[in-house]
């Protein structure tokens, strides 16, 4: 049974991202469990890709660290499995389409179902190209998450009305990374999304501070934080779990 809706039930969701295997399998497991303990409602596990075109430097570097330590799609599945054995929290994979395509859509989503990975986020799979993967994912009860960007405008209707799991609202133009200010009119986008969507919508890209999180969560159903967490991973190494716990707790408290 897909668990994504649990993340949004009677609350604003805090969604935390990190890259699998950054810098090692064990570290990323400990960091994920620290996020869970800190109050995260959904975990996004990045399967590293050699050429992550939607990422800024922070997550690009995490991808390189993970790949250079031997992380693979199979290892990422093992990581998700270990997390699943320890918690019921909803889990999504975030990666680029090529690693999924190359693994084989059937093989990939079947294994997601078996382990209990609830969704997949692919920034290079727009609405027009989603069906080759989404149709297979549906067979296995895995949600392919739709993204909506500041430039989506009249596309919001077709994207939102078919969206599953949750909708990922890209807060800003450009790539992932910490931003001091989010200039997009998120309220305006949310209004259009809510008109057509049957699922909740969370805002990501650029959110790092509790006050930003509160502002975005007030306008939507939750916030997604990646680069700020990955920065802690890079900065504190094996000491990262304590820092991640404190950070996630402060962010979750801000949006309660």
């Amino acid at each position, binding site marked *: 049974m897909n668990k994504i809706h649990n993340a949004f039930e009677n609350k604003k969701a805090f969604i935390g991202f990190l890259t699998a295997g950054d810098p090692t399998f064990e570290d990323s497991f400990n960091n994920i469990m620290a996020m869970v303990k800190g109050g995260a409602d959904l975990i996004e596990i990045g399967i590293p*890709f050699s*050429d992550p075109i939607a990422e800024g430097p922070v997550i690009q570097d995490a991808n390189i660290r993970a790949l250079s330590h031997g992380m693979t799609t199979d290892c990422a599945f093992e990581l998700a499995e270990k997390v699943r054995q320890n918690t019921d929290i909803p889990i999504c994979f975030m990666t680029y389409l090529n690693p999924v395509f190359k693994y084989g859509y059937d093989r990939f989503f079947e294994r997601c179902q078996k382990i209990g990975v609830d969704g997949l986020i692919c*920034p290079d799979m727009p609405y027009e190209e989603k069906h080759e993967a989404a149709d297979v994912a549906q067979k296995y009860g895995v949600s392919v998450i739709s993204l909506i960007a500041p430039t989506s405008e009249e596309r919001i209707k077709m994207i939102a009305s078919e969206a599953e799991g949750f909708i990922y609202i890209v807060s800003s133009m450009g790539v992932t990374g910490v931003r001091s200010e989010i200039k997009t009119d998120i309220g305006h986008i949310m209004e259009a999304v809510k008109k057509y969507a049957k699922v909740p919508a969370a805002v990501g890209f650029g959110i790092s501070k509790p006050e930003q999180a509160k502002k975005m969560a007030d306008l939507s159903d939750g916030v997604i934080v990646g680069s700020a967490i990955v920065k802690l991973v890079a900065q504190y190494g094996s000491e990262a779990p304590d820092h991640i716990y404190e950070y996630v707790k402060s962010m979750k408290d801000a949006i309660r």
Partner: protein
Amino acid sequence: MAKGRYGDFGGQYIPETLMNEIHKLEDAYEFYKNDKQFNDELNTLLREYAGRPSLLYYAEKMTKDLGGAKIYFKREDLNHTGSHKINNVLGQALLAKKMGKTRIIAETGAGQHGVAAATAAALLGLECEIFMGKEDTIRQALNVYRMELLGAKVNPVTSGTMTLKDAVNEAMRDWTTRVDDTLYVLGSVMGPHPFPMIVRDFQSVISKEAREQILEKEGKLPTAVMACVGGGSNAMGMFYNFINDKDVRLIGCEAAGRGVNTGETAATIATGTLGIFHGMKSLFCQNEYGQIAPVYSISAGLDYPGIGPEHAHLHEIGRAEYVPVTDDEAVNAFEYIARTEGIICAIESAHAVAHLMKIAPAMSRDDIIICCLSGRGDKDVAAIARYRGIDLHE
């Protein structure tokens, strides 16, 4: 399935942030490609500024020396800026202006596309930023300075393997931050639709001219046309108007680097597998998990881990042949054509010349080969000297 498919290849696998812009580009191109004023302006630029039509040159000495097929070179190296890249950038930069853009960005490998883009931007009054792998800015330092002379800003890309694919990544990242005033002027027949189609159309002038020229000179079509292939823009341009001439062989020459079995290669058709990257479904050099492989070639312009979707399709249906050519063979050909015909061609083009030298002797005197000399080789002289152990620096 989105538009822009060549068989199963192609598509539009890009971030949502770019989708509206890419549709606007499709609409603009569909309109302007049939617009008389646009075509008049473009044709004037091609004729008066780029120097078209380019020559179809009969290489009599090589023909005699190799002793087989009659050899013609399509001299794209004689275009303004020294390569075929100008055909595409004049088209796209003019399109950018018509769309109301004030800035263009471009990736470059060898620097030829970057120089061409900077040139078009200077001429048409557009701001221009070029993304170039740091490794390539070292290999092609002269072209970096050329772009700067032309008023462009060159951003050395330090991510990944610091070569052409990373330059494309960075250009795409830049475009997602700034779509309103910027057009990404892609340099090859790759990326998301409509780029493979737009670039092919603008480059097809090569085969349009070559077909007319050979009919005028020889009264018949060639046995084969050939070109080097990285992403594949000069090859697509050289092939396009011959695709329906079923008896004309189409031969693409890929960069095998140190050899297709060495791991230090960029021969995508020979070693790649089906994947989805840089906005397109096509063939890519990659590992079993879909991580894009570091590729290698002496030629910065062919040092790309993928190939345009229309080439992948022509390969799959058997209409075109693709062959790997090593660094060594290309350098030998570079030297041979210089000595024999007095032409210093680009090391990229020398890959096609190398294969030409293999197949021409086995053909008869009635056969005709047209080989595209995609660019001139001034930029490569120092690197070739170093390859031969001569310590020559620009």
